[in-house]
């Protein structure tokens, strides 16, 4: 069958939506990270605003709740001088039986310029991008298990900030990878940026062998997985996975795969520890590690706003 053009790029190969990191050119990623660097200084100014999106309307469409992510997008859009409208769709239209595309059509009629979409179904932002007006840009703020590209980019910004060169790194991603959109976006981004060794670490129920096709080394042993790592990305273990057929208990998971100072000693001495948040202390990571000298979890959050500003201003500047 015929394969279609990557729907997030226009005919010139420019980014018009950010739906996934998969398939993006390395130059596009670096350009976004470079742009984010220029915005970091904005965040330190007294007047934390630039006029790049003045007069534009950004709609936060969160079909799945997330106060944190929504807030960071809101801050980023406001620092770009956009008007921000937050819609908690769970509580409004879909509850009344309105279809996803009807909701999109209605919001488009309100002259939206950008949709920031979070949805529990993998691929939902693709459907929206294919059906919204041509001038509207779509940012995927997390879809099902599929992708969380802005998180992936802020993780890359963090790694570049602390490690400079991607091409010599060993990066270990630990935990519930099968259900993680963050892990998928990180894996794609790390691969594009030239990281030679990406490891996916966890039990077989959470780290399927099929992941190898994405260019990662699958490790079921924690020691093997983090030995010699330059970067460790710990994933949040969702409550519903903590007991059942995926895992017997949070305690057993912590014992096998939780990041403790002892396990961290297996990694490189200058290893950085990342986490997309919110953290489950004592489930995937011990407090002393989360708050310790290797942790860059709070810088991630700071960088996250600059990266989202960079994404929004980049796609708003490109036309379908």
């Amino acid at each position, binding site marked *: 069958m015929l394969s279609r053009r990557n729907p997030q790029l226009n005919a010139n190969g420019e980014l018009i939506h950010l739906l996934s990191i998969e398939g993006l050119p390395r130059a596009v990623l670096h350009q976004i990270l470079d742009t984010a660097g220029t915005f970091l200084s904005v965040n330190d100014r007294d007047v934390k605003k630039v006029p790049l999106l003045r007069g534009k309307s950004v709609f936060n469409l969160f079909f799945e709740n997330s106060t944190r992510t929504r807030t960071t997008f809101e801050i980023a859009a406001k620092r770009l001088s956009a008007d921000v409208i937050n819609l908690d769709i769970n509580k409004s239209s879909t509850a009344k039986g309105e279809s996803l595309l009807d909701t999109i059509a209605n919001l488009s009629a309100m002259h939206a310029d950008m949709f920031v979409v979070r949805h529990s179904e993998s*691929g939902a932002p693709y459907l929206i991008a294919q059906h919204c007006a041509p001038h509207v840009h779509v940012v995927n703020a997390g879809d099902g298990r599929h992708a969380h590209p802005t998180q992936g980019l802020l993780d890359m910004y963090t790694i570049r900030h602390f490690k400079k060169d991607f091409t010599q790194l060993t990066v270990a991603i630990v935990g519930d990878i099968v259900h993680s959109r963050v892990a998928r976006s990180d894996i794609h981004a790390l691969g594009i940026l030239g990281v030679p060794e990406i490891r996916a670490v966890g039990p077989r129920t959470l780290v399927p062998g099929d992941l190898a096709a994405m260019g990662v080394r699958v490790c079921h042993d924690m020691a093997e997985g983090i030995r010699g790592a330059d970067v460790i990305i710990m994933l949040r273990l969702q409550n519903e996975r903590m007991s059942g057929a995926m895992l017997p208990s949070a305690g057993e998971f912590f014992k096998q795969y939780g990041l403790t100072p002892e396990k961290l000693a297996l990694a490189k001495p200058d290893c950085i520890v990342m986490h997309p948040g919110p953290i489950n202390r004592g489930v995937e990571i011990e407090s002393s590690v989360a708050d310790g000298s290797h942790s860059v979890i709070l810088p991630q959050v700071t960088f996250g706003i600059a990266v989202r500003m960079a994404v929004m201003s980049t796609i708003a500047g490109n036309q379908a």
Partner: protein
Amino acid sequence: MKILIRNGRVIDPASGRDETADVTIASGRIVGIGSGADFEADRTIDATGLVVAPGLVDLAARLREPGQEHEGMLESELAAAAAGGVTSLVCLPDTDPVLDEPGLVEMLKFRARKLSRCRLFPLGALTRKLEGAVLTEMAELTEAGCVGFSQVDVPVADTQVMLRALQYASTFGYSVWLRPQDAWLGKGVAAQGAVATRLGLSGVPVAAETIALMTIFELVRATKARVHLCRLSSAAGVALLRAAKAEGLPVTADVSINSLHLTDVDIGYFDPAMRLTPPLRQGADRDALRAALADGTIDALVSDHNPVDEDAKNLPFGEAEPGATGLELLLSLALRWGTDAGLTLAQALARVTHEPVRVLGDAVGSLASSAGRLVEGGVADVCIFDPAAEWKVTPDALASQGKHTPFGFGSTGMALPGRVRATLVAGTVAYEAA
């Protein structure tokens, strides 16, 4: 009405006949195949350059009546059948209400007869409301016109019920139609594999099919029940079927046009048209299915026609309703597969004509001897098509109320081979191309 089909390439896959001839028809039956020079016809159809074949027999089509008329209606879907050259079809019992009572089956058959576009052979539900607990009144349903009993896409989780259903059906010689799918492993929206993992879609492992097949085969050994396996999807499933047939178990099987031509890679960027049941698997599975259909391990090719409306399809992949329109694509996709596999036209057509009739067996009564064939004295169910013509599958080109198909020209950019010019059911023209 006496009809002369003149100078066509007459292909009867069952006998191997493939020659230029006239076909004469009177009183709904084929009078002769050869020269029609002396035949006084009321109507002459010039089939020069066209193939005159038996009408197609489709073992799986949902018409969505009763209860789901917003997605499809007898009138539109039987028109689609006729436009696709399909003269007999087996419809599935997962309607609303479920086909578990004789009255519903009689009504459906009556309405179809009035439209006289296509012969309708309903499957009855194997268990009441398809709930997998209580058997339906199989004898009554058979009397009403059911040709077999099916659970469609609702697996019977309780193997005790399954054993009893097969025991009971085999008592009377009824056939049971099962899609092999484990009730628990079958949950998921795409085939397990690299594509589903990459896209973050929940996967259905091959074991969902093979475990169910092994269970079914063991129960067939115990009961001698006649089982038709619907919509095989995996290479491992094909291997189990091949072994079961070699052992002599009374089983037959079909594959859908979708699984025969597509793989999970075709999901692309979450295309809801590719949301199908069973899910599209990998290239090696597709190759095994194609080989098994060619060597007869799989008996029949089916459209798995399932019209789905816009509202149910234009959703995120996992929420989209599975299914695609297919009745009008069956001939073209059989021809394309035949060409790819290096088969003759007759060999390719066999899988959509007399082989499916063989699967139906005695359940279709006297039709068993001539449906799916072109024989003198037999029923005049005929499909006349142009093998050289290509057509573009577009929503406007489809008679079916269901417009979604993975083979749409808009997404594939490819035209399909073979265009139906006329369809005759019992000697009456049911469809004629404009």
